[in-house]
């Protein structure tokens, strides 16, 4: 944890810097370790998506099982803005964020009075509705074929612009946006809003009796997480050079839940990052040996849930974190810490 009284520490912490060091240098070493540039890009897109998702799942205790719809909407919105509006990177990304956020608002109004299993079921239903609309509204989404030929738009700074046609360059754009997202989300979850969201997870009723309008907090958390999904969707559209309906499948909504949980999103801010990295590495490494890699990944998930419900972040905390931390926090907590504060 950072020094709370240090104004820089309010925004940037050691783990954030460490993540910048790892992801910021990725294009230089990813091939040396036998992987490839596009994998880094995929990881970055999904890390952004999953970090935003964990605002709901880990912090708010709001299990959305339809979140794949929102990364899909972001991808379509990016493509539509590019084709029919202005092919400017910033404007198209902004369109992806805003349009996804508006869809998130509509969903939030429906789900924010619910919790637990009812919340989950409603998000599934809403995800399916968006999927259905996207598959039928062919004039906008291209239906089964998808939106093809979405451009990797140059990063326009007015006086000059940077071409990001090649994957490593696009990766750096994604990394820069990751940096912004991670700093803002970290600040957010430690703000009054974030702490109240965590209180809602622990005891919604109590929060209400303290005078907070729980509905508004849940709705805003939902909308924010869909806006982050929209940003990830815009990047994804550029990565794939297209936007396709598959991403809105129920399966992908489940995948982001899986990634977040396996990484330890319930106990750590960094859970989603661990989870996404593990997922893609498992896909490529296990996938090279067997078609049924997802089965093995699922098995790994089950073992983790049974023996280490705090996920990878929990394992990290117990091993590396225990060595790094100076304070005598080595005294084992009598129960697994379930608050994703760090």
């Amino acid at each position, binding site marked *: 944890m950072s020094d709370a009284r240090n104004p820089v520490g309010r925004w940037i912490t050691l783990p954030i810097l460490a993540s910048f060091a790892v992801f910021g240098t990725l294009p230089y070493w990813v091939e040396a370790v036998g992987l490839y540039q596009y994998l880094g890009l995929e990881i970055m897109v999904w890390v952004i998506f999953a970090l935003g998702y964990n605002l709901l799942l880990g912090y708010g205790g709001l299990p959305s099982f339809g979140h794949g719809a929102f990364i899909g909407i972001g991808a379509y919105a990016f493509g539509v803005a590019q084709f029919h509006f202005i092919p400017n990177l910033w404007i198209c990304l902004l369109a992806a964020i805003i349009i996804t956020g508006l869809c998130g608002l509509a969903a939030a109004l429906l789900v924010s009075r619910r919790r637990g299993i009812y919340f989950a079921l409603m998000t599934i239903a809403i995800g399916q509705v968006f999927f259905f609309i996207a598959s039928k509204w062919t004039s906008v989404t291209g239906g089964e074929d998808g939106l093809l030929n979405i451009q990797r738009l140059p990063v326009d700074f007015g006086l000059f612009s940077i071409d990001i046609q090649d994957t490593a360059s696009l990766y750096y754009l994604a990394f820069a946006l990751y940096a912004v997202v991670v700093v803002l989300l970290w600040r957010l979850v430690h703000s009054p*809003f974030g*702490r109240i969201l965590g209180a809602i997870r622990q005891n919604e009723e*109590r929060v209400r009796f303290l005078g907070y309008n729980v509905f508004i907090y849940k709705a805003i958390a939902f909308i924010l997480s869909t806006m982050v999904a929209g940003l990830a969707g815009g990047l994804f559209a550029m990565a794939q050079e297209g936007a396709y309906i598959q991403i809105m499948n129920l399966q992908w909504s489940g995948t982001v839940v899986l990634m977040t949980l396996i990484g330890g999103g319930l106990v750590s801010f960094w859970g989603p990052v661990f989870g996404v990295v593990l997922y893609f590495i498992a896909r490529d490494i296990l996938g090279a040996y067997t078609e049924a890699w997802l089965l093995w990944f699922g098995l790994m998930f089950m073992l983790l849930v049974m023996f280490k419900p705090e996920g990878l972040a929990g394992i990290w905390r117990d091993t590396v974190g225990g060595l790094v931390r100076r304070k005598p926090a080595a005294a084992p907590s009598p129960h697994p810490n379930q608050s994703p504060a760090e």
Partner: protein
Amino acid sequence: MALLEAHHIHKRFGDQVVLENITLAFEENRLNGIMGPNGAGKTTCFNVLTGRYKPDRGRIVFDGEDIGGLPPHKIARKGIARSFQLMNLFDQYTAIENITLALPEVRARGMSMMHDLSTDGETGDKAAGILARIGLAGKERVEARDLSYGERRALEIGVALAAAPRILFLDEPTAGLGAEATGSIAELIAEIRRDLTIVIIEHDMQFLFGLADKITVIHWGQVIAEGTPASLQEDEWVKRSSLGGLA
């Protein structure tokens, strides 16, 4: 006019009538006790007054304003705080954070997304002050779930106090406590009652008769007796409830 008045409140769950024509009035800066057997409807009464349930009939007036049927958060913002019979803390948060989130000034900034509470000395000091008041000085950084049962009971009251209420509802604040811990809760209540209107549901009659200005007995969802502790000594139900030894 009393600070809070409830007129002819009815509440039923399905076909079970739980509150039947309850009328109550709580005068400002008084300590009001509510007693009665298990299942009498005491907690339901609190739940109706604090907005958890809407009354089926009847009026609830707080400081001249009709608050019947308002949602809990709106009622809370008017200065009505409560504790719960079954404890209701944020278990994964520290003691001080439980208090902090209840402070009205934090509530007012609840939508702030970039602000940092841990660096805010003013709210921190205020929350620490409340912890000290309820006897939890030194426990600031202990997670609520790691506190002892008695400490959790005290924190439950502290959270309600932190909201700086005008009226405070305490639902069996000594439930499950031994004599010593009950004594310190009684001391705490004696200390906070000076500038606060308090309503306490309590089983421990000695506790209640020692503190209350006025006591209401609820049975079968109705008010069956009401008065000062002294006048209630003569009440049939109170007598039967083995209070005899107290006089």
